[in-house]
């Protein structure tokens, strides 16, 4: 049973091909409908919520030397709980260094950082979070990105990254066997709330892309694709306006 998503990913990712550097979007009509839904959801629910949070001053941008705000602490707590999963993924990718660093980060922040509310690992030990996920693991294993997808609520993705999300969520969180259901729920809630905090902090960028672009679907797709390729350290072709 545990292998099903992996097999699913492998078979899905084989479907779509695109020229290098570009992403195939054979599901564009469906994706655009999902995009319209996500955009409406943001306008009617997420943006007002983020504004409320921001109004409270709880998510003010962190300033050096000041204690973190409530939103920051909630975000810290949520991302601390996601570290063990990242460690497993780094190991699956054959990358021991980020695995070791994230392990130390988890140990420091869980103890000195009072269960992950604070981030002494980042501020005092030069151990920032090294982000990874099972989508990246699949990439390292040679699985192509597959077709572009925009998912309801979750936003832009690809066939490979969707399979990765399913695996990350359902299978490879080592804390699964350690935490109680209430603790897991708190962790998930913290991650959702910290998303709202990010939406507040990066509000103007999200507004600009989602609500002010001429074609917000195309902008979202481009931003996601470029950023994802960057995260996976894939070479991007530079634009040379003097050679055009």
């Amino acid at each position: 049973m545990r292998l099903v998503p992996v097999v699913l990913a492998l078979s899905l990712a084989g479907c779509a091909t695109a020229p290098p550097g570009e992403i195939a979007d054979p599901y564009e009509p469906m994706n655009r409908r999902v995009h319209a839904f996500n955009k409406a959801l943001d306008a009617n629910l997420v943006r007002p919520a983020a504004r409320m949070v921001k109004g409270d001053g709880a998510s003010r941008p962190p300033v050096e030397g000041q204690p973190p705000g409530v939103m920051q602490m909630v975000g810290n707590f949520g991302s601390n709980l996601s570290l063990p999963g990242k460690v497993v993924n780094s190991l699956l990718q054959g990358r021991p260094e980020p695995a070791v660093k994230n392990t130390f980060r988890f140990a420091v922040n869980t103890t000195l950082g009072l269960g992950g509310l604070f981030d002494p690992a980042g501020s005092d030990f030069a151990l920032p979070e090294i982000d990874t996920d099972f989508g990246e693991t699949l990439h390292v294993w040679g699985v192509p990105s597959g077709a572009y997808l925009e998912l309801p609520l979750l936003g832009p993705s690809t066939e490979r990254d969707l399979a990765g999300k399913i695996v990350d969520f359902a299978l490879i969180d080592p804390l699964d066997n350690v935490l109680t259901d209430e603790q897991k729920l708190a962790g998930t809630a913290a991650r959702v709330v910290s998303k709202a905090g990010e939406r507040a902090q990066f509000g103007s960028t999200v507004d600009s892309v989602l609500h002010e672009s001429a074609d917000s679907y195309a902008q979202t797709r481009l931003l996601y694709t470029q950023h994802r390729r960057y995260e996976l350290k894939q070479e991007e072709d530079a634009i040379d306006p003097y050679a055009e």
Partner: protein
Amino acid sequence: MGGVMAVTPAHAMTAAEASTAIRRAVDEVLGIINSGRPPAQMYGAFAGVFQRHADVDAISRSALGPTARQMDPSSFGQFREAMTGYVARKYGRRFQEFLGSRIEVGAARPLKSFWAVDSTAYLNGRSPMRVEWHISDKTGQPRFFNLIIEGVNMLASEREEINAMLARRKGDVGALIADLQQAG
């Protein structure tokens, strides 16, 4: 225009000069963000930085794509003018997320016909953000023409955006210019 652009500068820009030029632009931008001025004044100041440090002509031409080649100089001038305000407002607003942060400008490496200058924005409480600047002296002065924030390419996304705006106006450049003056 093409002939003027092709003239080789008497003194080609070095890596150190490329980094210095970017550091100057970054310091000006941070100065504006941290000045606490009202937004309208900030956008004016950003437009000034953009005109002094960026190759607005190359950016405008590249963002518009093939259509730019069919335009007469005066309407391209209007387009470039509208682009300046649009970029200052749009990116000026985004730059405010860098409030209170520190940006370190690193070394330059050669890339195609220009230099890529690395910089890192340190925002407290989150992972450092990498911003890469592409800078050329094809105009005779060191001028940046692109920035890449965590892999997201400004020129590429403006190409897509400007062309979506143009498509919405069914290729009417005059209408695009009018829209640009409101956008951002």
